[in-house]
């Protein structure tokens, strides 16, 4: 080979503690190195031009740049060598800035270390092979999982961009958590009024196919070519006939059915339409509470239904869809706050969650928008809000901040005063997190205009005083004293967690998730929408706590990613993937077993079983390479020989 080496000074960033000229001189002694230089700024335009010139002048067929981290400029320099006619994989980097000059003060040691790292890169490069990407077709159709506001936004944007959308929603109606809210901060405008039109757009958009009351059963394939199985759960109502007239819900005799949409703040009927603006506005039978199912006789709804839509023997149905990309927008659930025994563990009727409070305040809720205590229907005078219940609390395994509770708590305090002018609200908080536009002003209004008492501290316990009130034992750390409030109603700002089933969905999507079930983005800062599985994007709270504007923005961002992906007719696969040497392969299947992506399959080649890598699915982790005992499957660009070359360069005594 003919290798050129460039030792970057990076101004004084590297040159300050590394003798770059010396490193270049040492590098000239390395095998196959025919040229070495130490430019001031390699990544700058003249630096790149110098590399190109050197490639031509010295007929280089491989280039090593020793500079900053490859995580920063590897793509840059790959393009550089490509411009000069080299294959982009005939390039290696040595990180002598983050890993050398910035962390060590001893110039001799640094220079020696830099030279060794260059040696590693040279040895690796000597084992590199040109790699070429392959192209394949794309199915230009997207699956959006979750019909909350983020999913709705992603679906609408994709649909408007001309891409057919499959929207899958687990509940009977789309709208998600936002549909349950009474008002939204900081404008205090009606949630249903701003979300409703978007929901209607979903229903009416010619490019959107909505599967409500459905779940994703299985996902296979890879970017551009996913196959998705969707389970349409039995609603026992033929939606093609149901007009959403609601006659059945009026006549249903099972009137004490728990109402999940209303967060169990009041009862509903066994056949029900979640709320007046539901999309699709179709009835669903809750079989666990329907007399027809429980007792085997009733049939009232079937009798009353004017279109004969009731179908008690309906079964789940599996439909299969082919899509090229997937947006996960599965949102969140509240954590199970009943672990807080000191707050009554759910035994006190007037200690409720903020989402329950939303339903109580909502005009479409069980009390028609009148704020009353669940225990006795009285209007509360003293309302205590407790923040961070299940947020920033390691003792219950929830160390993270749920992000939007500070704001909705302020909103709820404001609304409480609006509803009950002579009421007094108290908010126990640790820190007020209100960094959004108009947010801090809003919390100040809650204090200054609505007289909400903000008390800095947590609440240690709540207990009924036996007189119909609740003793709230808290602290005012600013005062430095314990405080005690007798409250009529206590509203807990319960922390969020990833929606139920997120880890299972993540496994199906082959994306990572954190300890709490939130999906992992590809890069915290720079790839907040992408995942590590190509073609799968994230929107909304499923990726981490965020409020409505941020969820909507991420929904649009995900849609933009989908549209960008679909802007090309063919996709290119990353050639840094595993390859099977079929002569060496004995078809033991160990690689197939451990591949996290299902990217290896067994095929028959001349009568013998062999492993084969599905090039578009392989993500290039190399687990198979480390697993295969006979070295028959090698990860291109990180083969055993390439890594061994590096090990041998370091350890040869």
């Amino acid at each position: 080979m003919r290798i050129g080496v460039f030792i970057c000074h990076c101004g004084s960033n590297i040159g300050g503690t590394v003798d770059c000229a010396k490193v270049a001189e040492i590098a000239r002694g390395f095998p196959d190195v025919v040229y070495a230089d130490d430019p001031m700024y390699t990544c700058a335009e003249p630096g790149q031009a110098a590399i190109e010139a050197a490639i031509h002048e010295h007929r280089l067929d491989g280039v090593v740049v020793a500079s900053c981290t490859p995580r920063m400029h590897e793509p840059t320099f790959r393009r550089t060598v490509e411009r000069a006619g080299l294959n982009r994989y005939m390039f290696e980097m040595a990180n002598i800035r983050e890993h050398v000059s910035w962390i060590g003060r001893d110039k001799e040691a640094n220079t020696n270390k830099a030279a060794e790292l260059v040696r590693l890169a040279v040895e690796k490069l000597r084992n590199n092979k040109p790699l070429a990407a392959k192209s394949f077709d794309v199915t230009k159709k997207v699956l959006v999982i979750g019909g909350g506001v983020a999913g709705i936004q992603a679906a609408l944007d994709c649909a408007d961009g001309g891409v057919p959308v499959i929207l899958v929603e687990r509940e009977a109606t789309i709208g998600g958590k936002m549909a349950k809210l009474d008002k939204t901060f900081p404008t205090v405008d009606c949630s249903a009024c701003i979300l409703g039109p978007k929901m209607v757009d979903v229903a009416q958009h010619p490019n959107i196919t909505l599967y409500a009351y459905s779940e994703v059963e299985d996902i296979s394939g890879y970017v551009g070519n996913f196959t998705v199985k969707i389970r349409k759960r039995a609603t026992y109502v033929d939606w093609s006939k149901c007009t959403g007239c609601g006659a059945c819900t009026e006549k249903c005799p099972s009137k004490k059915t728990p109402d999940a949409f209303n967060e169990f703040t009041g009862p509903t009927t066994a056949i029900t339409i979640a709320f007046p603006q539901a999309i699709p506005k179709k009835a669903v039978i809750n079989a666990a509470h329907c007399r027809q199912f429980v007792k085997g006789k009733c049939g009232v709804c079937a009798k009353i239904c004017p279109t004969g839509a009731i179908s008690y023997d309906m079964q789940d149905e599996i439909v299969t869809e082919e899509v090229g990309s997937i947006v996960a927008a599965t949102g969140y659930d509240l954590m199970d706050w009943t672990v807080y025994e000191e707050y009554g563990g759910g035994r006190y009727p007037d200690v409720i969650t903020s989402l329950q409070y939303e339903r109580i305040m909502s005009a479409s809720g069980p009390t028609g928008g009148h704020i009353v205590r669940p225990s006795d229907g009285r209007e509360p005078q003293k309302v205590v809000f407790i923040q961070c219940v299940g947020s920033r609390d390691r003792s219950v395994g929830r160390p993270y901040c749920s992000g939007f509770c500070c704001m909705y708590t302020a909103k709820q305090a404001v609304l409480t005063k609006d509803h009950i002018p002579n009421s007094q609200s108290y908010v126990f908080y640790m820190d007020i997190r209100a960094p959004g536009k108009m947010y801090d002003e809003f919390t100040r209004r809650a204090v200054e205009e609505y007289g909400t008492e903000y008390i800095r501290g947590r609440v240690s316990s709540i207990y009924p005083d036996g007189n119909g009130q609740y003793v709230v034992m808290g602290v005012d750390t600013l005062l430095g004293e314990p405080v005690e409030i007798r409250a009529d109603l206590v509203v807990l700002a319960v922390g969020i967690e990833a929606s139920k089933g997120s880890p299972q969905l993540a496994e199906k999507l082959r994306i990572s998730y954190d300890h709490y079930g939130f999906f992992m983005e590809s890069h915290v800062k720079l790839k907040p929408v992408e995942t590590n599985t190509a073609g799968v994007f994230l929107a909304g709270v499923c990726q981490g706590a965020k409020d409505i504007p941020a969820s909507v923005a991420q929904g649009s961002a995900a849609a933009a990613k989908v549209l960008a992906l679909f802007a090309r007719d063919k996709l290119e696969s990353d050639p840094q993937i595993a390859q099977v040497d079929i002569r060496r392969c004995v078809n033991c299947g160990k690689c197939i077993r451990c591949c996290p992506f299902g990217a290896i399959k067994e095929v028959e080649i001349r009568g013998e079983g062999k492993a084969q890598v599905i090039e578009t699915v392989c993500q290039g982790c190399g687990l198979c390479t480390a697993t295969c005992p006979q070295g028959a499957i090698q990860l291109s660009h990180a083969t055993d020989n390439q890594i061994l070359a590096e090990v041998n360069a370091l350890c040869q005594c």
Partner: protein
Amino acid sequence: MPVLKGKELRIVGFLCNWCSYGGADTAGVARAGQPTDLRIIRVPCSGRVDPLFIVKALLNGADGVLVSGCHPRDCHYAAGNFYARRRLEVLKQFLPVLGIDDRRFEYTWVSASEGQRWQQVVTVFTERIHKLGPAPRLEDAEPLLKMADMALTSLRPLGTGQTAALDQLKEAIKAKLPELECVIGWQQGYDGAHTVPLFMKTPEDVDKLIWGPFNVNNPAVYLPSFKGKKVGIVVKGCDSRSVVELLQENLIRREDVTIFALPCEGTLDMARVNQTLGRYSKIDKVTYDEAGVTITADGKEHRFCMTDCAQGKCYGCTTPMAVLADMRAGQPVKVEPGSRTPPELALLDSMSLEERMAFWRGQMERCLRCYACRNACPMCVCRDFCVSDSRDPHWMSQEDSTREKLFFQTIHALHLAGRCTGCGECQRACPVGIPILALRQQIARAVGQLFDDYKAGLNPTAVPPLLGYELEEKNIHERDWK
């Protein structure tokens, strides 16, 4: 390149590109000062790190090796680090048997944002290695030769009485034979004191089948070569574990294999038998009694009582009955509960790290790299494509140094992690009697201790531990980097 004398030691790091390499970058950006010894090799994922890279480095001059990946659950590739965690932990528990201080190898998890943690990890690890000093080299050790103590007690009866049921077994084989390509068993070898594998194709072949303490070979070694063909196999308990392990790994198919079994009463340690017999020109007679055999060679009688002369593995054997069989004959055998540290391993356990290195130095010197150990191993299915004699990948050279030889044994042992059933064929096959089984036994022990007492080859549906993982490992714990 040589280390900076007097300043640095050779410390090699394998960092995953996504988390730990980024964490090291973050530390750099934060100008978090660190010792300069570490040389980082960037790999896509900690799951890419073949434990053999680490052994290779440690045998070839590294004073310390550090692997770092994404925190469990945060793997860029979803699960690579879960596999890595198991493999690296097994390696860590294996190294001391080679005489390598396991403190010289560490693995951890550092995310891309944890610059400070990375600084801490590098600093603590480098300090640790400097405290340990330059790693002792295998070549510098003064050879130390010691022998395992073979005075052992057994968990189950040892003897030769079960032959009574052999005829019944033969009938069963004959009945099944027409459906099968062949049935693998044992026949007499060049004399009455040697038994060799038998491939029964006709009823007359079946009549050659013998059962007894000379049936040392593990016939399961031949099964993978019959993959796809209907074949029968006669097994001892230990052989059946190899069959089960092959099934576990889909190397053979259950429907293809018919297993015939008799309860095993132990097999002779032919190495010790031959030591006793010495040089002789002819075996005159071999007679059996309940407790052992008497071999008359050149007119001289030698009695071998099974309780004294069984193979080392037989004493701690808990599966004299086949763990899986289609046809069984003979009387069930009672096994006492308990476990035994195998004699070879007990020998290594009794040594210091320095002694162990010296031990292997002494033992490996006489290895000729004939690879009888490998080829006799029923789990060595790579066979013609073993990495030990390949140029791509080029793990080993043809040099006859003790280091290369020991490295091969390490390859074998690590490739057997969670798979070795302890049949001992590797050691039995070794013409120069190197107690290489100890390395496999240590791996098996580590796997057992880490994964709920897992033993390879007991359950055909069990997932071999290194081909699986748990989100939270019960017995693998994150180390403290304080």
